[in-house]
């Protein structure tokens, strides 16, 4: 029972190819772009912030899909990158450096270094050990943030300002912030699609199916995976930047291990490895959370069993279900 091909490989047959449905993605982004207009026409007003939040998590889920879906590496510590991004943003704003063009490079470098170091260690293992180690590293950052007493420690850090672009508050208008996040989401989606379609992406995908064969072909699988891990961590860090600016608050809870589990669920809910599935999954997750939390404070007691049932009875997530419906109507 070698652990190598087991992680996400089994889902390989049912998943659709990354970026294989450009039309679906286009419709999705167009629908998202219409949300502010819909709100002004009478859709519940809190949808604007809800969808903004969902798109922020969609960026993180998208980055996770790059390593989990495309690369077959089940990382259970991905929320750490959101947290690092949020904390770098929060700390720099607290220190009076609100300029986005200053924050983003610092944030991306910090995330890249953390991803490179933890990735180099965790990628030495495979399968279940990789899951456990990424979880442990995520927890490490969580406890580190709790110990940061100068920046709020366990209670978190309230931000008294937001980031600025050339002196202008990026979230001064909620609609403006919505479109900035949407733009970032589309940009990240495009970037990940390009990466996946490139030779690098094909090697990454091939290594998921059969790492030995790819190695024999002459590629350094470990290096390819590490680079993908670093890219993924940087994109997730970007979502942390937006999250800090939306909530105007940063806390260790951003990177609790439950959050990492939720990110995995978003990816699986949408459909592993399809990229647009991650976005759909994040949207569906946050809407479900919103609805259930409105019904009862014990919404997790409903949500947990839903996850279990989903895993036991569906294959390929929402994207897979859509594909099956389409397949049936075609045939």
């Amino acid at each position, binding site marked *: 029972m070698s*652990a190598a091909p087991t*992680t996400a490989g089994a889902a390989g047959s049912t998943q659709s190819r990354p970026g294989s449905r450009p039309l679906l993605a286009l419709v999705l982004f167009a629908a998202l772009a219409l949300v502010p207009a819909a709100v002004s026409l009478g859709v519940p007003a809190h949808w604007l912030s809800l969808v903004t939040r969902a798109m922020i998590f969609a960026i993180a889920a998208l980055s996770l899909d790059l390593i989990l879906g495309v690369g077959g590496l089940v990382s259970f510590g991905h929320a750490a990158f959101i947290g690092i991004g949020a904390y770098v943003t929060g700390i720099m704003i607290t220190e009076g450096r609100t300029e986005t063009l200053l924050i983003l490079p610092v944030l991306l470098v910090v995330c890249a270094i953390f991803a490179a170091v933890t990735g180099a260690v965790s990628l030495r293992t495979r399968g279940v050990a990789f899951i*456990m180690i990424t979880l442990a590293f995520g927890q*490490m950052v969580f406890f580190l943030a709790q110990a940061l007493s*100068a920046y709020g420690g366990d209670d978190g850090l309230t931000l008294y300002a937001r980031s600025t672009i050339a002196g202008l508050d990026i979230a001064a208008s909620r609609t403006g912030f919505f479109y900035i996040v949407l733009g970032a989401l589309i940009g990240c989606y495009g970037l990940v699609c390009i990466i996946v379609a490139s030779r690098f992406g094909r090697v990454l995908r091939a290594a998921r199916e059969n790492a030995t064969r790819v190695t024999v072909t002459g590629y350094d699988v470990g290096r390819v995976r590490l680079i993908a891990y670093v890219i993924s961590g940087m994109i997730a860090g970007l979502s942390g930047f937006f999250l800090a600016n939306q909530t105007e608050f940063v806390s260790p809870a951003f990177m609790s*291990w439950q959050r990492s589990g939720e990110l995995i669920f978003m990816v699986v809910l949408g459909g592993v490895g399809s990229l647009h599935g991650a976005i759909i999954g994040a949207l569906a997750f946050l809407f479900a959370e919103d609805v259930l939390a409105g019904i009862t404070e014990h919404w*997790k007691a409903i949500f947990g069993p839903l996850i279990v049932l989903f895993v036991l009875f569906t294959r390929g997530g929402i994207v897979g279900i859509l594909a099956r419906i389409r397949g049936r109507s075609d045939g």
Partner: protein
Amino acid sequence: MTTSLLIVQILNGLQLGVLLFLVAAGLTLVFGVMDFINLAHGVQYMLGAYLAVTFVGLTGSFVLGLLLALAAALVIGLALEFLVFRHLYERDHLDQVLATFGLILLLNQGVKIVWGAAPLSVPVPEFLSGSVRLMDGILYPTYRFALIGAGLAVGGLLWFIVERTRTGMLLRAGASNAPMVSALGVDIRKLFMVVFAFGTMLAGFAGAMAAPILSVEPGMGDTVLILAFVVIVVGGIGSIRGAFVGALIVGLVDTLGRSFMNDLLRLFMSAPSARATGAALSSMLIYLVMAIVLFVRPEGLLPAKGRT
């Protein structure tokens, strides 16, 4: 740092190590034999503690309450096995992680609904309530000694079962090649049930034993689960000996780090910055140990034989 404080902290570290071993042993057995990663194992620990609260309260006797709590934890564990886990053995690890994650959400919340969100506690049993005098001026609670002793005893029993009995032999065989064991006419499903039930009991036992000295609260299992993961990764996945060594390392490093990191840094830092750095560094210490172990030996310190 003084010698007396060092002795007390070493005992505390042992005690944490023993608790971690009980949880990690079940986790690593279940993983080793069934190739099944059970995140809900930490929840079993939490349920053990909560059931101990209820049954000790009902019966008024710690021993009786402990036994009833163990039985109840076993029933819940078997019910979960029947309803959920059984259908996941053939699935990939991603599905197993997600489904058991869903169970954690349900059970953590369920515990809040049934017992409330406020921390509860179990009184230390009467006959173990005193303390033992180690040397002049050092007293250590008897109950904590009992906990360490009970943990070591269970460890010894486990070693005996795994290394010296027929069931243990099947277990080891199953861990290295389950399909072959099945082909030789062993009812592998039944073996899985036994292993699973045993692992559940161990976690429940750890939770119930910890209930008098820790606060019993929702989410208490999550912390232990992640520490148990570190233990397993350090010790080598699927290996009971590895889990034992790993648990002691993690227990001791964590406890000693938390109590002495400050003093150590004070040697070359000012007091306030030593306190701040010490707090951050000591909470990261076990993860650093894990990273170093993995860097040197990716398969862990004492990997199970016959696994690839």
